[in-house]
């Protein structure tokens, strides 16, 4: 190679640019453009989501305003969700409440179970046990949600009714079961984010507490958990974001029919995701109101998860800054 003789040697940490300008070689230039183009796809995907959701959502609000006389306030506070009825109603509260119930139930399962698993993995488990439990949790995270939904509907629901026959079970669906099943599959996420946070807590903090005579349990509760709290909060927020977006489990275990505002845990309750999956099965015509309704609900769902995700990303970043 003739050009390399004239190049100055790159110092430690110097980029490849110190050696040779890669843009001079057409091959290197083309490859760099391909790599940069690949990276751009992540940005384009977000842009595509926004571009596909918001125009249709805006046309939804315009149409319900002009044709049905429903204002944004009535949309946000209405308690009957039946956009495809002959006499349609556009109160979004029932499906928002439905999604919220799923999130609360899911967190009631995944926060304690995930946090306890994380404390065990980070503070107690010998390396050998850890090497078995961590992959098992990853396998749980990878179980297809259709399978979990059918398991919840055909196994958990009848078993729960048999065990507690006095509870007011109504109909084949129960959001209680759906929410708890969603909780089970968000356990690995909660556990792995919390475990990462706890393992980043400096060993010196633990040793200081041991030196003062604390037991292992007290060190875990009073030192490690508080020191890792922002990572744990990020885990909770990510688990909530995952739960609000979960579709198949909720669709199978809690149904997609109920248009009423309902807090009944033992009956079917419709969620935002179940509405989208139930309505947008390919054969709805573009430009119709129901098509735009799907996009309006999709926008709402996207905005909720976006804010949860950004909140979690900030929390994790702040945590990393403290201990790195």
């Amino acid at each position, binding site marked *: 190679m003739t050009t390399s003789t004239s190049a100055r040697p790159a110092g430690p940490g110097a980029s490849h640019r110190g050696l040779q300008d890669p843009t001079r070689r057409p091959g290197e230039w083309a490859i760099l453009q391909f790599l940069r183009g690949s990276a751009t796809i992540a940005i384009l995907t977000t842009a595509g989501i926004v571009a596909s959701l918001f125009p249709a959502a805006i046309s939804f609000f315009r149409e319900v305003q002009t044709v049905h006389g429903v204002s944004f306030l009535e949309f946000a506070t209405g308690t009957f969700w039946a956009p495809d009825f002959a006499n349609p109603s556009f109160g979004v509260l029932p499906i928002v409440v439905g999604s919220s119930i799923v999130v609360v139930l899911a967190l009631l399962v995944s926060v304690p179970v995930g946090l306890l698993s994380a404390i065990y993995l980070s503070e107690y488990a010998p390396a050998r046990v850890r090497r078995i439990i961590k992959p098992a949790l990853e396998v749980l995270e990878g179980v297809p949600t259709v399978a979990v939904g059918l398991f919840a509907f055909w196994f958990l629901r009848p078993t729960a009714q048999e065990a507690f026959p006095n509870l007011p079970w109504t109909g084949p669906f129960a959001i209680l079961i759906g929410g708890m099943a969603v909780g089970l599959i968000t356990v690995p996420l909660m556990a792995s984010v919390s475990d990462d946070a706890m393992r980043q807590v400096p060993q010196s903090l633990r040793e200081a507490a041991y030196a003062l005579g604390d037991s292992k349990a007290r060190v875990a509760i009073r030192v490690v958990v508080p020191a890792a709290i922002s990572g744990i909060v990020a885990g909770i927020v990510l688990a909530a974001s995952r739960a609000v*977006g979960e579709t198949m489990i909720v669709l199978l275990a809690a149904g997609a029919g109920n248009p009423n505002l309902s807090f009944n845990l033992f009956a079917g309750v419709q969620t935002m995701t179940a509405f989208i*999956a139930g309505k947008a099965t390919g054969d709805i015509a573009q430009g119709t109101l129901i098509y735009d309704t799907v996009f309006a609900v999709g926008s709402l*769902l996207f905005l909720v*998860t976006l804010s949860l995700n950004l909140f979690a990303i900030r929390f994790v970043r702040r945590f990393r800054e403290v201990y790195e």
Partner: protein
Amino acid sequence: MSITSSTASLPQRDSIRGAPPAGERAFSIAFSAVLGLGIFVALGGLAAILIWAVSAGLPRLDWGLFTNAPSTARIETAGFRTAIFGSLYVIAGVIVLIIPIGLGTALYLEEFSDRTSRFARLVDLNIQNLAGVPAIVFGILGLAFIVRGPVGIGFVAAAGSLTLALLVLPTIIVSSREAIRGVPRSLKEGALALGATPWKAVWTQVVPYAAPGVLTGAILSVARAFGEAAPLLLVGAVTFVTFNPRFWSDGYSVLPVMIYQYATRPQASFRLLAFAGVLVMLVLVLFMNSFAIWLRNRYERPLQ
């Protein structure tokens, strides 16, 4: 800090001199039991799903499941053949798309960009957020942009591939970045010092050593795409196809969506068919995931 000066301020507790007090010991045992309960619920839940799938799916499991086409008329001989073909097409498309794009993005972020640059930080933020965007929202994107709109290829298997590829890209990117970060800098620097071009140094030194990690991410992504149903409901996989689909034309279905369709029919024999499908799908997904995790643990040791 000297030891002698700090011992004076240490609290005089029993635990320093000998055994911890009885109450403390009971607390420790109770806490360990609660921790065990947490692990038990998590792993017990996984075990319950697997045991249920085997017991519910086995009665209907036979070769006809793979060779017979779906049917609503002859339930006893109905199978998943066309849905399995659909899944294979969709997954093949996903693999072809995510490996170059996922590896390309990871290489760009780790090797060819200034990590503090605005562009790199924006890409990073987008990847982190996209990892948490619900699958069904990708379905909406697929419906508006890929099936219709700018790409406009209609309800075909290729639309399913594109939608799922976008959905799982963050998974393969994150795994690939970690793998690339684990390659010692000295390998690349050695190649550069010998006169290799930047790309040559990365391609011959960094990529081979990062390959197991990239492959792990690819397999995890494919396993996820294979089991995903929600976004495909929106991009056309609900067609009840009784013939093998083609990639660029015709309606298609995939295994998890076919399972969902069978499961929501009222007759019990359809339900059994769905359970058998769940068992097949779980075995395949678990095999892929276990292989990926094994692969990662096998090559996890950092090079020295």
